[in-house]
Each structure stands twice: as structure tokens, then as C-alpha cells.
């Protein structure tokens, strides 16, 4: 079953003209420990891709290699057509980077820092528009050290996009957020990908977040991509069985079926009008994910 998901992913993994990330057989080892053992994927312009996996799966290592902050041990990597290990400042100006934790520039005011960092780019976002986009207009004059965790994170995103990047990296963007801040943040990312054709690569260990934000999810476990596809594709192709519930003559029934549609068709053919309360539930992404990660870790 896993094989068919990889095959479906492979069709989308052929680099095209609008490919922004191209990774083939990416390997990374620290001493004797191999953290990435052959990662393959691509991402296209305007696409939101989530790199999902348990802690220690190599998500941050992967994103740092793509950002040009870490040298890989082996494999082929192109980001916006350039090898990140030798990316120049022009290449850098087309990327936006939001890292896991910043505490920098605590004495600066929000608007002041955005204006300053924008000045490194040729066509930065106007500060007022940017503040409006991330919902920080009221905090323009606030000293950064006094921002709340959620506000600080939105400022980080504003800084990440101030140069109108073609590709934005978000490393664990909502760690430590309360549910409301998390939802606001997700809205922000949606708005962002609506106004521009910015491609986004985000890492997360939060399944719900990957499902809400990403067009495509790559599941990274034990140093390789074990599955890729939309949330829907993943749960359809990997978990297989769906749960069908219905009632007939006041009695309730439950059945697990690989082909739920066919099963329901038969059901109606046999009993017609007598069927009520029909409910078909596909295996959740969470079940899919847990199973994939368990399989990968078991196979190691």
C-alpha cells in the first residue's frame, strides 16, 4: 500500500519549469549517525508543502540544508535552481526564512525593524501593508521584547516575507501557541499564499496543522520520506479500510470495507429505502500517519 503512495508522489516529483525545490537522494550524517538517508521531493511555485514527522526525524536538518545554513553530506539539492551550499546574495534575496525561535532585536520597534530589514531588498513590501497583512498594525510602535508569543511569531513571518520571496521556509511555526493563536496563524498563511504565488515549505510535527495548511504533505520518518500526497490522498491510499454505519428496521449496523462505495451500492441494491442514518468514515489522517511512522520505525 505504501508503495502506491510513493508512486503517486513520484509523478509529481519530476522537476518542471516552475520547480522551486528539487531534492534527490539527500543525505546527512553527523559522525556515525545518519540523520537523512536519501530524501527525495520537489515543490513547485505557489505550492504549500508540509514536512511532517516525529521529533528527531530530520525535518529541521532538511530545512536548514535547503536554507543554505547547513552543509549536506551528499545528494542533489536545488533551491530556485541554485545549490544552497553556494547560493549568493541575490539567491538569498528570493528566500524568506522563519526559524524556530528568535529573540533578536528586542529593543527595536516593530515598524522600525521591518523598515530596516526591508531596505536590504530591491522591492520590499511597504511596511504599512505588511503590518496590515500580519495583523500587527496596532503594534507598529511596540518594542519587540514586549510582544506576546503569537505577535512575535507574526512579526517573524512579516520579516520572512518583507522581501517578497519566491519561497518561504517556516520551521515549526506554531510551537507553543494556544489554539486561538494557532488558528490566527493558519489564517495568516492562507492569506499570504492567496495574495502572492509564494511557495511555502513548512515543518511541523502537528498533523492537524499540516492538514490545514498544506497542499501536499511529505511524511518524514527515520531519515526518509515514507509517503507524500494531499491529506486526502494519504488517508485514502494508505489506510484502505473505511468504516460504514447505517440503520435498517430500527437496528444499527457497522462494517469495515476496503471499497466503501461499492459496499454502499450493494447495500442500497439489496435493501433500498429501508436503509437510514448512512455514515461513511474514512480512516483519519492521524491513523494513517501513526501507521506510516510505526511501519518506518519498525522497518529500520
Amino acid at each position, binding site marked *: 500500500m505504501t508503495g502506491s503512495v510513493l508512486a503517486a508522489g513520484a509523478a509529481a516529483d519530476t522537476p518542471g519549469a516552475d520547480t522551486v525545490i528539487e531534492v534527490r537522494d539527500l543525505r546527512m550524517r553527523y559522525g556515525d549517525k545518519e540523520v537523512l538517508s536519501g530524501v527525495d521531493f520537489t515543490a513547485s511555485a505557489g505550492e504549500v508543502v508540509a514536512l511532517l514527522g516525529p521529533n528527531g526525524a530530520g525535518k529541521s536538518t532538511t530545512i536548514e540544508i535547503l536554507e543554505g545554513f547547513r552543509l549536506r553530506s551528499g545528494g542533489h539539492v536545488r533551491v530556485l535552481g541554485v545549490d544552497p551550499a553556494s547560493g549568493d546574495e541575490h539567491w538569498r534575496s528570493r528566500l524568506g526564512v522563519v*526559524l524556530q*525561535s528568535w529573540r*533578536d532585536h528586542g529593543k527595536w520597534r516593530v515598524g522600525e525593524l521591518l523598515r530596516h530589514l526591508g531596505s536590504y531588498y530591491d522591492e520590499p513590501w511597504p511596511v504599512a501593508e505588511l503590518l496590515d497583512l500580519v495583523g500587527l498594525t496596532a503594534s507598529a510602535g511596540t518594542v519587540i521584547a514586549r510582544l506576546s508569543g503569537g505577535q512575535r511569531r507574526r512579526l517573524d513571518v512579516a520579516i520572512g516575507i518583507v522581501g517578497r520571496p519566491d519561497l518561504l521556509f517556516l520551521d515549526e511555526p506554531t510551537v507553543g501557541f494556544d489554539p486561538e493563536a494557532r488558528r490566527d496563524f493558519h489564517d495568516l498563511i492562507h492569506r499570504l499564499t492567496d495574495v502572492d504565488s509564494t511557495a511555502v515549505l513548512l515543518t511541523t510535527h502537528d498533523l492537524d496543522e499540516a492538514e490545514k495548511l498544506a497542499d501536499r504533505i511529505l511524511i518524514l520518518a527515520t531519515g526518509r520520506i515514507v509517503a507524500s500526497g494531499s491529506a486526502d490522498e494519504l488517508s485514502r491510499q494508505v489506510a484502505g479500510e473505511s468504516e460504514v454505519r447505517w440503520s435498517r428496521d430500527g437496528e444499527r449496523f457497522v462494517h469495515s470495507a476496503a471499497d466503501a462505495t461499492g459496499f454502499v451500492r450493494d447495500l442500497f441494491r439489496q435493501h433500498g429505502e429501508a436503509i437510514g442514518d448512512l455514515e461513511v468514515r474514512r480512516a483519519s489522517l492521524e491513523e494513517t500517519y501513526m501507521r506510516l511512522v510505526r511501519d518506518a520505525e519498525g522497518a529500520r
Partner: protein
Amino acid sequence: MSGRLIRIGVSRGLIEMRQTMTTPSDLIGYAFSPVLLVALLFLIRDEKVPGSDLSLGAYSLVSSMAMLLVIGSLLGMAQYLAMDREDGTLLRAKAVPNGMVGYLIGRIVLVAGTSVFTCAVALIPGAFLVDGLRFDVFTAVTLLWLAPLGLLALMPLGAVLGSFFESVRAAALLMMPTLTITGISGIFYPISALPGWLQGVGQTFPMYWLGLGLRSAFLSDEPGQLWRAVLVLSLWAVAGLVLAPGVLRRMARRESGSLVAARRERALARTI
């Protein structure tokens, strides 16, 4: 390096200068040593340098600006670099196109500005307490070349040293060798009181020569060996400028998000 980038860097330095000058705790930090120094001058205002008519207060006031410059620019630069790696400022600069250049120019402006400010806090009230300072064209001309040369000898060196420290606390350890060197650099007492070999050791460091240069600018009867000061300070400047770009580049290359996060964990673990 483009003019635009220099402008960005300078404006960065000036913004941070304004921020630090309006932060009370920072101001106390800058003023602490000079105020202590002026208090000391008050105690020794009537004493003379042995074997001369020169007031010891005037001698110490002028020479100790060399110490303040070393603390302000060499240690200041080192501590900023350690701090900026710890809190992610440096990584942020790395994530921006040409950000490292802008960052460094900004830091040079800030460190030079705060060093000069610290000296002014000592010099202005100090000048009213001691006798025998001169302020003429020669003073101005000497300061105009000596201060930039001194900063050029100290700041790159501070940046190189700062690259080797993983935390602000570790960088603060540089204070100990600095104070030791102060003791053998003729800052509070003429170096001639020391054994010959120790004088030689003191004369290899920039602090002695900065002090000598400052004395020749402000004290009329201090025998000048200015060409030697120029020579030694220039050597330190060249050494620093040759070493700094490579060391800084190497340090910057190794910065990554997970490193900053790891340092943050350590810093938090210490405070708990």
C-alpha cells in the same frame, strides 16, 4: 560593497545607538567605569607623578581613557558578537541578502559611538577635577588620527575573540586578561615603576600605546614616542583586519537555527 549597503549599516548603527542611549540599564553600564574613575581622580587630585610636576590625577585621567577604549571597543565588540549569536541576531543577518555586511557596519558604528561616549563621561567632569590638561590644535589633530587608529586596532580583534565564545558569560571572562594588561600598561602609574621585562610585555599590547598617544595629546610635558605608537597600533590593526574576515565568515557559516535553539535552551537552563 555598495554605498547603499554602507548607508543601511550606518543607519542600523545609529538606530541601535539611540536605543541603547535611551535604555537606563545600558546607560548605567556605560557610565559605571567612568564614574568610578572620576571618583578615584577626586581622591588623588593633589598627588604628583613621582619625579615630575605632573599631577597624578591628570596622568591617570588621560591614560585611563585607553583602558575605557579597550573595554568599550575590544570587549564590547566581543560581547556583542557572543550575544548576537546567542539570541539569533547574527542568524537573522545571515538570512537577509548582504545582511552580515550591514550587521558588521552597524556594530562598528555602535561600538565606536558607545566607546567615545564612555570616554566623554570620564573626560568632561574629570577635566574640571585635575590640573594640567591642554586642549589645543595639537590635541585635536592627535585625537583625529589616534582615535580611529585605536578603534581599528581594537574592534577587529574584539570581533575575532568574540567569534570563539559561545555565550555572553564566556565572553565576559575577557575582562580578566584585560584588567591584567591594564596593570602593566602604565594606566594608573607610569610603566617605569615596573621591572624591565614586564615593561616589555606591556608594550606589546595596544593599551600602552593608546595611553601614550592620549598623554601626548592632552599633557604638554609628556615625552612623545608617537611614531612607535603609530607602528604598534597599525600592526595590531593590520593583524585584526587580516584575521577578522576569515574568522567571522567561518563563524557565520556555522550558524543555524538549531544551534541558536540549543544555545537558547542552555541559556534558559541557567536562569531556572
